[in-house]
């Protein structure tokens, strides 16, 4: 038999933000490792496209469920209609660069609601309704921002990611005894639409902070997430895994 502790065969994995740059890549990587995938996103067309990009697996059909996770009813419908899961990738998020003096309550509330409240409430619902099997793994897409460094104009996003970091560690503490692990990946800049608000000049300058002299590709993050979902990381919980090309070293 082939030795592969990174295999996800027989596991079912729910991915939020499943149509986005990182989320859709997590789906592809995990399906290649044998997992059955449940993608959810607010964007219907992109969701179907992400679904069709998954590799077929023996354990069942992949699913795609459109849901606005900031809406309590839609969140509950999602939790009630998905199969029991072994992995939960809490990945949906938004970013907007705003200097502190231009922060509005409306933007603050909107970004917090998507990046912090929805992940907390969805995790709570999955745990309360016992939808995550024993031996399961929860992985948040946090960020190097907030947790490991801050940068100008990124206060709201960084604040929400600090919140995710604290929540991740708390869930790890509470659910470790129940056999459920909880970790995060903490990327720096990733080549996705999310960094669209940076100018080319800003990106060029920012890249000088990366010893590996490039930004992450979605697969760099997806492979880290796949490791945290797999049995290869069975003794890893409460960890914020930097995947930042060395950016936070200096």
């Amino acid at each position, binding site marked *: 038999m082939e030795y592969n502790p990174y295999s996800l065969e027989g596991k079912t994995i729910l991915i939020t933000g499943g149509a986005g740059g990182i989320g859709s890549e997590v789906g592809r990587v995990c399906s290649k490792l044998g997992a059955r995938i449940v993608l959810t996103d607010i964007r219907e067309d992109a969701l179907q496209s992400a679904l069709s990009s998954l590799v077929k697996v023996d354990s069942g059909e992949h699913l795609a469920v459109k849901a606005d996770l900031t809406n309590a009813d839609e969140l509950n419908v999602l939790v009630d209609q998905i199969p029991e899961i072994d992995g939960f990738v809490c990945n949906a998020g938004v970013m907007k660069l705003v200097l502190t003096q231009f922060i509005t309550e409306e933007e603050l509330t909107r970004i917090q609601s998507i990046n912090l409240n929805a992940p907390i409430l969805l995790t709570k619902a999955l745990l309360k309704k*016992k939808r995550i099997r024993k031996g399961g793994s929860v992985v948040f897409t946090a960020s190097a921002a907030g947790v490991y460094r801050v940068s100008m104009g990124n206060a709201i996003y960084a604040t929400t990611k600090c919140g995710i970091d604290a929540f991740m560690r708390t869930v790890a503490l509470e659910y470790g*005894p*129940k056999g459920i692990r909880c970790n995060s990946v903490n990327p720096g800049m990733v080549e996705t639409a999310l960094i669209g608000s940076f100018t080319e000049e800003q990106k060029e300058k920012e890249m000088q902070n990366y010893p590996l002299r490039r930004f992450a590709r979605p697969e760099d993050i997806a492979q880290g997430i796949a490791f945290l979902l797999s049995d290869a990381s069975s003794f890893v919980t409460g960890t914020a895994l930097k995947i930042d090309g060395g950016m936070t070293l200096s």
Partner: protein
Amino acid sequence: MNLNEFIQHFAEQFDETSVSEITPSTNFHDLDEYSSIIGLSIILMVDEEYGITIGADDMKQAQTVEDLFNIVKTKA
């Protein structure tokens, strides 16, 4: 407030202990799975389901599930 329904909510706080193992006369402190975090879950369940605040002292004072049910009932 109904004892059977209370037992159902009480049992939901456990993962390894089946509802059939929990009766009105069960001394819940003796259940293998009972822990401080499950005790806290029960306190929070009572608040969520019945809008009643109980504390660690009440948990300590109650020996059986029915004892706890009675404490909750007196606070209703």
